[in-house]
């Protein structure tokens, strides 16, 4: 298999721009609906989530599954009409309630009222997540800060090891991956009501780390080829570099995505969407490294009159 990266770059860029555009549209619609580009989860919006399991699961004496209507009426009595309710589990004995932020008194009242109406819950399978609005903002700010700092760190490192033009184009490819991952989750938020939490920001950062890795391997090869073949046109250099690293790019993505698929299949609900975000981001990352970062680099060198290796490129690389 040999890919003609440069020749068909119109096609590759078209695919990328299509996805980026669609992502931006999804985020814009999401902005209209939720006031944020992605549906903010508990971590960022604040609120309380109670996850309870009926005690009959422990004693194996369940008769009928829980009903949303029953729970809803209890919540109305507590003045929590706008809460969302989900029934969980194979036996329909799990209950997940998401409300505004409740303080400890309100929570206790609610839990007691629920127990009165439905029966006792198993204290060992209770999960409580309560996040005040202050903490929510704090988590969001620190997450975004981490994202920006790692972008800056990567630019700095790549300019040091390569050159500034490599670094900036690599960041462009990264932005592409982050936007597409966010877009997919904006879409999931609109369609399935999937929310993003701090783990989503973690996944974006991991995508950044992984995808820059992919780009670096290709740029590393471009740099090496430039040194070995100073007389070759940049388009050919990039083409052969991508093809030489192609099976590595595919295999690495495969070996990384496979364990993630395992998490999606077997992991708990917390990790499911986390792994999914990583899978989307990694695939976007591989694509952008192979097709976008490389061809953009060729275009840039060609247009800026460096179509053939420069003096600096011919310098032997140093390994520190």
């Amino acid at each position: 298999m040999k890919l003609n990266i440069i020749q068909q770059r119109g096609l590759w860029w078209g695919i990328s721009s299509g996805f980026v555009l669609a992502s931006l549209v999804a985020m814009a619609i999401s902005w209209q609906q939720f006031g944020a580009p992605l549906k903010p989860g508990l971590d960022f919006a604040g609120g309380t989530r109670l996850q309870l399991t009926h005690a009959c699961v422990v004693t194996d004496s369940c008769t009928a599954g829980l009903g949303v209507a029953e729970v809803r009426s209890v919540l109305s009595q507590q003045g929590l009409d706008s809460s969302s309710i989900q029934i969980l589990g194979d036996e329909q004995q799990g209950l997940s309630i998401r409300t505004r932020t409740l303080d400890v008194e309100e929570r206790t009242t609610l839990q007691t009222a629920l127990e009165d109406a439905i029966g006792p819950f198993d204290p060992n399978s209770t999960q409580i997540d309560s996040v005040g609005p202050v903490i929510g903002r704090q988590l969001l700010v620190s997450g975004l800060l981490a994202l920006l700092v790692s972008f800056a760190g990567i630019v700095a490192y790549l300019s040091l090891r390569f050159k500034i033009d490599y670094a900036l184009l690599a960041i462009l490819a990264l932005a592409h991956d982050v936007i597409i991952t966010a877009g997919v989750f904006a879409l999931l938020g609109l369609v399935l009501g999937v929310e993003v939490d701090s783990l989503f920001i973690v996944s974006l950062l991991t995508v950044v780390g992984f995808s820059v890795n992919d780009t670096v391997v290709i740029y590393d090869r471009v740099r090496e080829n430039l040194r070995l073949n100073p007389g070759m046109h940049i388009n050919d250099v990039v083409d052969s570099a991508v093809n030489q690293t192609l099976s590595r790019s595919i295999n690495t993505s495969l070996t990384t995505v496979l364990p993630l698929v395992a998490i999606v299949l077997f992991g708990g609900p917390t990790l499911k969407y986390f792994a999914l975000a990583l899978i989307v981001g990694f695939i976007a990352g591989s694509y952008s490294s192979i097709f976008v970062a490389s061809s953009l680099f060729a275009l840039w060198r060609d247009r800026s009159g460096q179509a053939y290796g420069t003096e600096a490129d011919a310098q032997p690389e140093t390994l520190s």
Partner: protein
Amino acid sequence: MALTVAAVVVITQLPTRLGLDLRGGSQLTIQVQPTEAIPTITEREMEAVQTVVEGRVNGLGVSEAVVQQLGNNQLLVQLPGVSDPQQAERVLGGTAQLEFRAQRAGTEQQLQIENQILQGHLGELAALQAALPADGAVGSDTQARIDKLQADIAASETAIANLFEPSTLGGEKLTDAIARPTGGTLWEVVIQFNNEGGNEFAEISKAIAGTGRSIGIFLDNRLLSAPTVNVQYAETGITGGSAVISGNFTAESGRDLEIQLRGGALPLPVEVVENRTVGPTLGRDSIQRSLYAGMAGLAVVLVFMAVYYRLPGVLADISLIIYALLTWAAFNLLGVTLTLPGIAGFILSIGMAVDANVLIFERTREDLKSNKTLYRSVESGFFRATSSILDGNVTTLISCLALFYFGAGLVKGFALTLGIGVLISMFTALTCTRTLMFLAISLPQFRKPSLFCPGLNPVCPDPVRP
């Protein structure tokens, strides 16, 4: 080799520390609210508030509870295995209640007895908790005994509190508390009231001076100290708004009392702004699921490598297993607390660890294709892949650092495990795989290029190098 053996020893000897989301428990973030009187919260105030909160946490009787400062106005409280998160949250919130109360007449002996009972309970509880196994599994008998003791302790504390008269001399009238040495090895604590407090304190101390009864200093209704007042103050009480509590204070216990008093004097409300509680059953579920996910992920990767890369793939598999063991051992050695995202980071790093091997093997294949000898191909495969491996991993580490520095709680756990994983993976790829490869090609039966790049097998990419 030796490292691997050491790793296995470490894994079996040192317990893996599990986060609250895996073993069950509550994690609370407590925000200290500034008030009009104290608009900014300094280090000194945080220290005092932390002591108050620690006192309350101890009152909950949770073993291995952790209280630590978070930023400049928050405290993070971790309560493993807490069974009633609502109670915990109620107890931890609210402003500290410090009170100076006079002992009721005729209760001298009773106070001593109650105190002895309380100390007995506390001692037994501490002993029980110290003997608990590290994994947090508590037998039902032990748990019942612990619950009973905690109820008894609460009852004793109430009984003691009832031996004292109610008082209006609260912490807000205390302006300062300072521990100081008395000249020898003993320490004393100086307390300072405002005007109103000074007058009230004079009243109270006058009433009990020389009677053998004491002034009870209560923090959150728990007796901190019960000093008596000398007969010489029977006329006027201790006047001037300041007093000295002396007794058997060491530097440490004096300072403890000082901080407790100061914490009680602070009218700073603390509010629980975040509560994350996971029941132990849910935690066990998560562990099992992630274990399956990890195993399945690892298995798929191992099979893929062996099928695609043949002999080198098998060797990479061996070093991958060594990698997993080393990383696990590193977690135990460094005392990394494993959380759910942490496990995800670990599983992910398995996938990434393969990358270095893939880079090397692809290079080796290319060189074999261009008719280099096996030895030289392997050699240059390692050499030329090194810079790619280094650059790629450093950029991942940069992301990890950013996450670790800015992230909170769970996020930190992920960054840490992924970061450790990446570091160790570089090491195992460049040393273990290398050693194994050179060992393999030194054996004649393995010295067949087809084992490395199966002949004209279509799996092997065409040479594109001009």
